[in-house]
């Protein structure tokens, strides 16, 4: 017997277009975000690889947060002397710059550079001139933001530290600082020859020191790096080549695109439900054909094979559409991510991306169509002719099929994420989420089923949810999961915003002064003229815990601890860097978790109290001996207590607090914070910086606002991607309306025959959609609020806000969207005259 019947296949493709269209759209939807992200990720990778040298401005970069040991300087100078590399130094730090003789000062990100910087990439200036034609001793180049905020222009003087320099040009692009992701202040480029005149780089100052090397022989890059490594103290100096350096841009994109991929897979999963749902409806519409074909002697294999071809052809159209839309979406991403992107990113469609996307489409179609097609095997004509639901006769193959689908789905997630552990967690989490949504949906539907509504339109609308083949379950599960995730992200974002931005305690300091030298403290306090706590800060590396290397903590501690808090990435061999402090008692908002007192008994040598998060991250316990390296001086300390600090506290978090006498003599800077009326901040800043040019002033409210805007932009992108998953839910609503079209036409006809007006029937259908939207939104709200509460309470340990207005808005928008989609799909049904249905029924008798 022939297995393939081209005419049969062609006819199936040509008829009943609505469900095939939804099927095609669901397949496209399942792929679109992943295709876009994959292509975009490739483009970002290519840009980063292409610009790897430009991103660090050199072949080798030697970097430290402390002044280099003379041995390092000698090693680099020796390399330069023998002509193996060109070298240049840079110093990067924050400082407040001023308009000389006038009010107006601004925290700026200074970069003092030797001639030669950058060895790779080009600094672009507004004038179009070359960097070195402009930057010379006595001149600075600044970002436009500085001109705007200080009200100065090119040619004006600028007071930086002890020097007065002339603004010579405006910087428009800096190759090793390509993003405006987050910065405390605008860039100011200063010539290396002015460094001493600034008088801003002092012991203990927060400066990033760099040596940049451009190898004479490109093959010798690694050797040069190794040569410097042999003399450098790896705990304080980090050495990278352009190949090993993971820049902030790269880290940001790796993490962000990875997260968006998770969102993409989530969309794929929900669209997968749409694929199953629409295919089931599509095949049901063909039950008559299948019954006749089987009655005329067609084998189950014939039916299954031919429908597989139909589904694969439709799937191919969907996959093609998905790939096309994915590439279109890819082109919109630069606009969404403007400011975060590497420069000159070239978006291309690689053969690899097309092949991988097509493969993804094939896997998606096979994965999510298997079950509905598998069910065709057991379909007997008698059930179809009698209009009965065929029973599931053999549950074992069904269960095995489900297991296979789960396995394939997990494989798909692993393939897309490229990280088995995360993929397994994600797949497991996503399935648990779906399971929870399914259980909640089932429970809610059971309750609704028992609800004896006496109001007639309400009762009929409610009953409509339970009409056979109504996709109520699929719709509610899909929509509630998609909305739940989306709303959860929104609630958390708003909660974080509320905790950090809106609820900044009214009495907490809003201006901080960093890098006060100990000998300046008295004069500083007198100039400040208001009461303030002066906190010493000592920078150090934690070398060992009980003689062993401290536990590595790739994720870092959850919160800042007053210092750099952990290795800066890259080689992963550096000892974690901390900022230590000393004081006699617990600070406000702190409490002891372990230990009788902060510093134990008087006999303990060098007692230290450890913050709970730091202790957990590094595997530190009471009584442990910690070995620190304080800028070259070793110090062993004994843990006398473990402290906890209120998460909402605005006090600085210190991982390690020593008793005063231990660190008094250590090289240190001092910082303090005061509360000032917002309109007085600028004047205070000007006054203090004029008197103490080396002191860094941070306006916390402005910083937090900038941070919040970055967070908001990122969550907007996440929301944009998550919105695709909601489309899956809405497509299932349309699929469900079409799948139950006959039943709905029947209901509408009966209502009208029994005396209902068209308006009444419309009201019942509208109400049914309202119930569907309400149920989905309510379950989404429940899941989102519980998850957000758990995350805020247990992960962030912050106050949780319910956001009633947003919750009501989410429910209203969901109801409106479901009703709009459902009613538009029902227009034909509502317009139909009852006689048409009755006549059709009579013909079918």
């Amino acid at each position: 017997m022939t297995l393939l019947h081209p005419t049969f296949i062609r006819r199936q493709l040509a008829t009943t277009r609505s469900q095939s269209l939804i099927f095609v759209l669901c397949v496209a939807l399942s792929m679109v975000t992943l295709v876009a992200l994959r292509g975009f990720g490739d483009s970002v990778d290519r840009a980063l690889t292409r610009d790897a040298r430009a991103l660090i401005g050199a072949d080798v970069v030697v970097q430290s947060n402390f002044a280099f040991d003379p041995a390092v300087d000698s090693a680099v100078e020796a390399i330069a002397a023998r002509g193996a590399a060109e070298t240049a130094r840079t110093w990067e730090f924050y400082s407040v710059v001023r308009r000389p003789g006038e009010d107006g000062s601004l925290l700026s990100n200074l970069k003092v550079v030797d001639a030669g910087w950058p060895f790779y990439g080009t600094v672009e200036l507004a004038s179009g001139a070359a960097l070195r034609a402009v930057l010379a001793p006595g001149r600075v180049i600044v970002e436009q933001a500085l001109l705007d905020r200080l009200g100065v222009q090119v040619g004006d003087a600028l007071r930086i530290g002890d020097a007065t320099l002339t603004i010579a040009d405006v910087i428009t692009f800096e190759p090793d600082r390509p993003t405006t992701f987050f910065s405390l202040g605008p860039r100011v480029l200063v010539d290396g020859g002015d460094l001493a005149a600034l008088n801003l780089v002092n012991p203990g100052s927060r400066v990033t020191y760099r040596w940049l090397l451009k190898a004479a022989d490109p093959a010798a890059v690694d050797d040069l790096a190794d040569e410097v490594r042999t003399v450098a103290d790896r705990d304080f100096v980090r050495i990278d080549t352009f190949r090993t350096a993971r820049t902030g841009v790269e880290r940001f994109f790796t993490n962000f695109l990875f997260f968006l991929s998770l969102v993409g897979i989530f969309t794929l999963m929900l669209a997968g439900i749409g694929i199953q749902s629409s295919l089931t409806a599509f095949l049901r519409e063909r039950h008559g054909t299948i019954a006749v074909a089987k009655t005329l002697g067609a084998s189950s294999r014939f039916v299954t094979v031919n429908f597989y071809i139909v589904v694969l052809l439709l799937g191919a159209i969907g996959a093609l559409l998905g790939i096309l839309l994915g590439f279109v979406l890819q082109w919109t991403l630069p606009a969404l991510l403007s400011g975060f992107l590497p420069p000159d990113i070239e978006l291309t469609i690689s053969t690899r991306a097309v092949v991988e996307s097509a493969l993804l489409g094939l896997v998606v179609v096979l994965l999510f169509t298997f079950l509905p097609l598998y069910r065709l095997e057991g379909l007997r004509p008698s059930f179809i002719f009698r209009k009965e639901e065929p029973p599931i006769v053999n549950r074992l193959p069904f269960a095995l099929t489900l297991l296979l689908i789960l396995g394939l789905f997990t494989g798909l997630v692993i393939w897309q994420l490229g990280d088995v552990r995360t993929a397994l967690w994600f797949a497991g989490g996503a399935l648990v989420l779906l399971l929870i949504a399914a259980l909640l949906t089932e429970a809610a539907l059971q309750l609704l089923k028992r609800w004896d509504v006496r109001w007639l339109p309400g009762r009929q609308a409610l009953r409509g949810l339970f009409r056979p083949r109504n996709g109520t379950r699929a719709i509610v599960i899909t929509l509630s999961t998609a909305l739940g995730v989306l709303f959860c992200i929104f609630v958390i974002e708003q909660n974080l915003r509320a905790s950090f931005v809106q609820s900044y305690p009214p009495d907490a300091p809003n201006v901080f002064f960093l890098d006060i030298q100990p000998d300046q403290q008295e004069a500083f306090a007198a100039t400040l003229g208001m009461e303030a706590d002066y906190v010493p800060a000592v920078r150090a590396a934690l070398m060992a815990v009980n003689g062993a290397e401290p536990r590595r903590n790739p994720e870092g501690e959850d919160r800042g601890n007053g210092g750099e808090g952990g290795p800066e990435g890259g080689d992963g061999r550096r000892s974690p860097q901390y900022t230590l402090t000393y004081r006699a008692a617990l600070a406000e908002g702190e409490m002891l978790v372990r230990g009788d007192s902060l510093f134990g008994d008087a006999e303990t040598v060098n007692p230290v109290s450890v913050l709970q998060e730091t202790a957990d991250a590094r595997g530190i316990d009471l009584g442990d001996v910690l070995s620190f390296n304080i800028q070259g001086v070793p110090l062993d300390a004994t843990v006398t207590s473990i402290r906890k600090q209120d998460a909402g506290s605005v006090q600085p978090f210190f991982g390690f607090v020593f008793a005063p006498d231990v660190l008094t003599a250590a090289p240190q800077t001092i910082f303090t914070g005061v509360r000032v009326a917002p309109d007085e901040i600028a004047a205070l800043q000007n006054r203090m910086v004029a008197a103490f040019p080396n002191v860094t002033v941070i306006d916390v409210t402005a910083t937090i606002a900038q941070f919040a805007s970055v967070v908001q932009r990122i969550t907007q992108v996440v929301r944009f991607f998550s919105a695709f998953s909601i489309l899956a839910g809405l497509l299932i609503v349309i699929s469900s309306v079409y799948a139950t079209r006959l039943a709905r036409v029947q209901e509408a006809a009966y209502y009208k025959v029994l005396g209902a007006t068209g308006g009444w029937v419309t009201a019942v259908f509208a109400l049914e959609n309202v119930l569907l939207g309400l149920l989905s939104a309510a379950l989404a709200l429940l899941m989102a609020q519980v998850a957000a509460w758990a995350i805020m309470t247990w992960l962030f340990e912050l106050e949780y806000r319910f956001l009633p207005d947003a919750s009501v808005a989410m429910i209203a928008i969901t109801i409106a969207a479901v009703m709009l989609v459902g009613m538009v799909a029902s227009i034909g049904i509502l317009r139909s005259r009852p006689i048409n249905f009755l006549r059709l029924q009579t013909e079918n008798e």
Partner: protein
Amino acid sequence: MPAILSAEQITKSYVIGDRQIAVLDDVSFDVQPGEFVVIMGSSGSGKSTLLSVLSGLDQPSRGRIRIDGVDVTDWSEDRLAPIRNSTFGFVFQSFHLVPSLNALENVAFPAELRGDKDARTRARTLLERVGLGGRTTNFPHQLSGGEKQRVAICRALVNDPKIIFADEPTGNLDSKNGAGIIDLLIQLHRERQTTLVLVTHAPEVAEHAGRVITLADGKVVGDEYREENANGQRSTVN
């Protein structure tokens, strides 16, 4: 007495492809209140179409339909709705019960639609009257064909309509159940003096009617009034 239902020169035709097919051709007759009229004819004679046109479910291509002397031919669906709800009752061959409602709810539905507070009580009484007092909570798929049709009859009666339209009410039933349904319809027609317009192709059903209108190829080819003798048998009087 004025006619409760009048058909005046009713013509109904359909266009199928490029052909126009006439289903009813110049059909005219009046129905008096309380009459039991059977419309007979072979399959395709146009009898079901005539019932649809008479009951306002379908509109004639030409001609007028009057209910209690009021011309309703051009009335919109919504204007006809209260007439369908309270003046008419429908019984169909395929029962057409709302699948999502149980027997009691199906019967009560037209009364509830009218806003009748006693809808459920009336429905229950009717169901008990037809012997379905114990099946009120059963859904249509849980009922036999005969039971479904009895529920449909109760539903047709719940608003005390003036006219009941029954389209092949025994068509989907076995002969025993079919006979039971006809007996029930006749009993209820007599008890309530409701006008009954019934379409059938079965002569044994027509034997119970007071008037038999016969259709052939869309035309009225016979209109006989019948009289019941002392034995309950009917014979033609005109």
